[in-house]
């Protein structure tokens, strides 16, 4: 237990008010400053506030495999600041005989569910140690234990404490530093270490996917946001509301989700790049107007941070069950763009791209994120490439009475001058219409406009938006995944490849319109294709089948939330001898 390692996974847990999450964030911040990657998932109890909480953290891997994009299979250490309600979290904190549990005997006996894992139990007198420091809090003692366990350096620790706690004043910083120090010393006295091999110190990003979506929106040029709060998407709205204070632009808190998307319709018509932000139940309320935006050709980005459904479901947990409604949730045929970021890092660029595409194609673009991408805190490389900007076509070919807003162009994109321009007055309409925009019941007009809207999406040069392929050229197994499932699938592929089955991950970013050729290329040469996704019915799998994008032997591995996907689960599924016949 004392060799250096490429990563270490640590849980810090405690009851309401203990500050386990703050301790976790500080650990992540310290790891970043010490040159490591990292990933932190927050768990909290059913109570709105003040309930028990746990920070699930993995740090390390710098200079080895790149950023950490999936929860670990197991945790090396559990730092239990106390034991209140820990059993609720137990299924999400896999421990084993190689794990250590650090707890305060004063907090009571180790719960059976934890003891049963076989983890080694070590005692740390969190309470007494915190009491030994002026203003000391047990969470910072826990932080000190964790930081020393991971072998993080002093400067990084101090910098992280200053970054996290500095706003509370020098006294609080001093107390935290002191508490961390007694924690570190107590750990040292126990003689355990899981010290990381040295990290590569360089500038990285520390953010969540929700933050990154916000940044992508601003980079893309979003100026008007209308939204109604909903977990786990609210943070994007809040991030934008705060940042737009300085940056310019506006966030309107709408009375409901329907109002929000209709406000976006108004802003889009007015000539302004616009976005609305929601999660499943809110998306359901938007689909009527989404159809209007498609029919009237109004650009906007509709962000859906997926959570466990159906209905209210489990608002704080991740799932990928909104793909169906994102693809098909409007009455009538309304072909659309559905983009999903393939990692937290990709959230910024894909959102930026979504804004460009919406503007260029004058159509709503669905951006499918999920709770796991959105709310996980991560340390990642700074994304260096950004999508090339695209603009709305506003210059009309003719003005005056012959101006036709919905002219049947070859590209399917017609000029969309904004109000204020003389001679191009037009009426946006959800009724079937002629090129002029005037309502028409005639089959010939209806079908011409339907085809035009499809043509826009089909003839657009999607470049490399479609997705990414990772893994060996000689792969025999291909895993197709999207969103937060890409991370664990990629980790599983790495392991399978190491274990002798060269495995590739095809990360789909442009889910619709599906780029079948690119997908076919990506699958070329593989003998087995498995679609991995976090929902009950295999929604991506069905979509790909429906588009005839999969061979007859393709398999589905679909499993709903709330439990996160871990690489081990995917590997186990793929290597199980008694797999049920693909069906």
């Amino acid at each position: 237990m004392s060799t250096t390692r490429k990563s270490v996974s640590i849980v810090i847990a405690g009851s309401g008010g203990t500050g386990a999450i703050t301790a976790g964030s500080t650990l992540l911040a310290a790891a970043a400053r010490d040159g490591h990657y990292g990933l932190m998932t927050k768990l909290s109890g059913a109570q709105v506030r003040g309930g028990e909480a746990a920070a699930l953290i993995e740090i390390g891997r710098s200079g080895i495999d790149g950023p950490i994009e999936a929860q670990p299979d197991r945790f090396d250490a559990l730092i239990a600041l106390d034991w209140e309600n820990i059993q609720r979290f137990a299924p999400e904190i896999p421990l084993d005989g190689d794990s250590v549990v650090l707890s305060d005997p004063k907090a009571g006996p180790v719960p059976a569910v934890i003891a049963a894992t076989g983890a080694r139990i070590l005692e740390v007198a969190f309470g007494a140690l915190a009491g030994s420091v002026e203003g000391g809090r047990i969470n910072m003692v826990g932080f000190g234990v964790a930081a020393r366990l991971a072998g993080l350096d002093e400067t990084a620790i101090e910098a992280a404490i200053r970054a996290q706690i500095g706003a509370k004043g020098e006294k609080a910083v001093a107390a935290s530093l002191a508490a961390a120090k007694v924690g570190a010393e107590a750990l040292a006295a126990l003689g355990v270490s899981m010290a990381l091999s040295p990290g590569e110190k360089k500038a990285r990003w520390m953010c969540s996917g929700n933050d990154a979506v916000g940044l992508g929106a601003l980079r893309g040029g979003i100026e008007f946001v209308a939204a109604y709060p909903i977990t786990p998407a609210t943070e994007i709205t809040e991030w934008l509301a705060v940042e737009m204070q300085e940056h310019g632009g506006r966030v309107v808190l709408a009375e409901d989700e329907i109002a929000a998307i209709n406000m976006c319709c108004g802003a889009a018509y007015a000539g302004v790049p616009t976005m609305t932000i929601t999660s499943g139940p809110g998306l359901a309320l938007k689909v009527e107007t989404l159809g209007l935006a498609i029919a009237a050709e109004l650009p906007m980005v509709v962000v859906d941070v997926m959570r466990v459904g159906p209905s209210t479901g489990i608002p704080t947990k991740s799932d990928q069950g909104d793909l169906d409604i994102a693809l098909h949730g409007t009455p009538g045929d309304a072909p659309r763009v559905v983009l999903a970021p393939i990692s937290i890092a990709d959230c910024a660029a894909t959102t930026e791209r979504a804004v460009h595409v919406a503007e260029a194609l004058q159509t709503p673009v669905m951006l499918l994120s999920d709770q796991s991408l959105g709310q996980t805190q991560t340390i990642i490389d700074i994304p260096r490439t950004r999508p090339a900007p695209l603009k709305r076509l506003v210059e009309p070919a003719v003005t005056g009475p012959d101006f036709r807003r919905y002219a049947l162009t070859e590209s399917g994109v017609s000029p969309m001058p904004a109000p204020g321009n003389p001679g191009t007055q037009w009426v946006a309409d959800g009724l079937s219409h002629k090129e002029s925009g005037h309502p028409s019941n005639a089959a010939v007009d209806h079908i011409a406009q339907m085809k035009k809207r499809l043509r826009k999406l089909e003839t657009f040069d999607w470049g490399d938006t479609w997705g990414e392929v990772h893994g060996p050229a000689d792969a025999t197994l291909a895993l197709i995944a999207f969103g937060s499932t890409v991370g664990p699938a990629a980790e599983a592929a790495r392991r399978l490849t190491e274990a002798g089955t060269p495995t590739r991950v095809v990360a789909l970013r442009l889910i619709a319109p599906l780029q079948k050729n690119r997908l076919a290329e990506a699958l070329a040469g593989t003998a087995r294709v498995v679609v991995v996704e976090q929902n009950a019915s295999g929604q991506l799998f069905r979509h790909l089948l429906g588009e005839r994008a999969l061979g007859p032997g393709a398999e589905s591995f679909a499993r709903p939330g709330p439990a996160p996907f871990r690489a081990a689960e995917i590997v186990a599924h793929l290597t199980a001898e008694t797999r049920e016949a693909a069906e």
Partner: protein
Amino acid sequence: MTIHEAPHVCPQQALTLKDFKSSVEPIWCSGCGDFGVLQALQRALAELGRPPHEVVVVSGIGCSSRLPAYTTAYGFHGVHGRALPVATGLKLARPDLEVITVGGDGDGYSIGGNHFLHACRRNVDITYIVMDNRVYGMTKGQPSPTTEADWDSDAAPGGTGVKPFSPLAIALAAGANFVARGFALDVKPLAAVIAEAVRHPGFSFVEVLSPCITFRPEEMEWKKTIERNAVTATTDRTEATAKVLGANEMTTGIFFKGDRGAYASAPTGHGDAEKIAEKFVVGA
């Protein structure tokens, strides 16, 4: 041409009603009150002097909501009941435009009721004209929230038994900054009220009694029962409410002119997103 700025073209000569008349032929039944509202709006716009390309007329779905295409202004014929949020987004994104919202009693008070409440409260500088015929005309005659409790129809044989509510009282309670009632067939006075509503800052609400000749032919009698301009505007909300609740529901005129400041327009211009991106950076 940029998408943001309205090149304000100074009209060479005064605008007239004709400048706002489009070539699209209304689908309305001949005799429908909405023709009067259309004319009054065109007149009011001419009087206000903004050229058609600086005006946007927004609506939902219904007979009345077909209005935008009948003007030469920019227009938005959205989905049923959602005209007000569209207008809100439009105006907040482009405060330089004149935004007029129109629709029916079904569109505005049934399915759109929540947006009505919140538009009154939010007080964005837009004008809302409801052509209230006390029926869903477009779907061929069902009772709306302003329909008399005993009005018989297939959808509610013998009547719904539900008392209609007063949209004016609701607008006042929810915070509208200008509240008036007009009559569709009194084109000139209606035009004057509309012009005043547009000029008044914040959210202005004009309820227009507009007969549906097809499904409510008895409403043609309104010509006789209207009490024209029988009210004087007050700036006191409580007093205005008392007037609305106390007055004959056929009373036209301006009931209320408030002094709430309109919802503020957004900070414009773009900061540098890269400055914000730097906040993500650690370990440098």
